[in-house]
């Protein structure tokens, strides 16, 4: 019995070590490790930037099993700032945000239940991503994964990837990623140079999905 223990212990240790190693390695492995630099830089993605004017959307938000619906307004102001306002169907306003020309952000109005830094920052980042607010004039380095081309826009902690086909003829999706994993994915259905007909925004680090459908008035 003793000899059996002595012989099994090393095997057991090896198994645990291997498992830990596997878990650790898989945990550290980035979901974007397989991106291959193309050596190219491009500004082609700028043509996909949604061109809002005054656009209303029916909106549904699913968070941890809770479903919330309402109407979302995007309005470009004379000074180029964009106002984003969310109301419910009955007309009660929940928030009114301003994305200024100089990339500042102002909260004009927010319901007290939503008035939390974490919620405001989350919504700010989501809207910035779908409006491609961080996209400037600077060319972005292009990476490749099979037939998809990733134009990478690094941020302080996260990177925004604008993913197109080979000829940059269509925007397949946008991803926001940490160093290791995808955090948010945005899909826009739009004609180039106009406001999107629909938007799907999925979070991957927690259970949240936002869907927008443009109102035909």
């Amino acid at each position, binding site marked *: 019995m003793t000899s059996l223990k002595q012989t099994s212990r090393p095997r057991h240790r090896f198994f645990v070590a291997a498992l830990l190693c596997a878990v650790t390695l898989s945990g550290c492995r980035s979901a974007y490790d397989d991106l291959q630099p193309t050596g190219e830089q491009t500004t082609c993605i700028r043509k996909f930037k949604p061109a809002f004017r005054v656009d209303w959307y029916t909106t549904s938000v699913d968070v941890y099993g*809770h479903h919330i619906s309402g109407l979302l307004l995007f309005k470009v102001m004379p000074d180029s700032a964009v106002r984003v*306002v969310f109301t419910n*169907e*009955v*007309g*009660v*306003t929940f928030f009114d945000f301003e994305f200024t020309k100089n990339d500042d952000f102002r909260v004009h109005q927010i*319901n007290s*239940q939503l008035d939390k830094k974490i919620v405001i920052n989350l919504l700010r980042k989501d809207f910035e991503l779908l409006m491609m607010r961080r996209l400037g004039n600077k060319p972005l380095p292009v990476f490749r994964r099979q037939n998809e081309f990733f134009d990478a826009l690094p941020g302080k902690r996260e990177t925004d990837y604008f993913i197109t086909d080979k000829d940059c003829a269509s925007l397949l999706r946008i991803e926001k990623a940490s160093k290791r994993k995808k955090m948010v994915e945005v899909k826009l259905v739009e004609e180039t140079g106009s406001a999107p007909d629909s938007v799907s925004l999925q979070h991957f680090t927690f259970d949240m999905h936002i869907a927008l459908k443009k109102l035909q008035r």
Partner: protein
Amino acid sequence: MRRRNGIRIDFVRILLMTLLSTCFLTSVAQYSGFKPVGDLVGFKKQFATEAKKTQSIKSNFEQEKNLALLQEKIVSQGKFYFKRENRVRIEYLKPFQYLLIMNGDQIVTRDNQKENKVNVKSNKLFQQVNRIMIDCVQGSIVDSKDFTVRVFENDKGWLLEMTPVDKTLKDFFKTIVIHADRKDYSVSSIDMQEPSGDNTLIKFVQKEVNVVVSDDLFKTN
């Protein structure tokens, strides 16, 4: 967990606001006008009497949401139904589809994506909603502790200015102004004025009182 609770409370509040705006339509006798009503006690009594006569309401409505600072508005249209004691159906048809049914303890909302069902008994705030609804149906909403009410009149009708007392309601509304016709005590419009200066004006048109309204309209399952 805090966020989940917050969202749940928000959802409840949205429904509360909706209910408040609709229950005023069900309380028939409300005032609108320019000079204060002299006999407030008499008005309240008449209000309650007329409210009790209403068994059902069927009406179209037009809703205009005004964003004051942005100088933007969105107009929607739909149908409203009420059937005594406590059944309400609000159906937005243009330019979006949205349905809200209140039937006793059950509340159902349905948009293009999903249907939500809520049991009033499961939440303290919903119990408050229920109480307000009963106040409306019984015509005692003018005595509600949730609002201070001022009543005005002219030769065409009445104006009720409802100012929230409750902090929750204050968060959403500065005042709610209700116009009612003198000829049949029916509500012609509800104006929900928000602290920001925005407002939502709901006008009821082609109202039919005490007509046949099918029970099927209030099914929650």
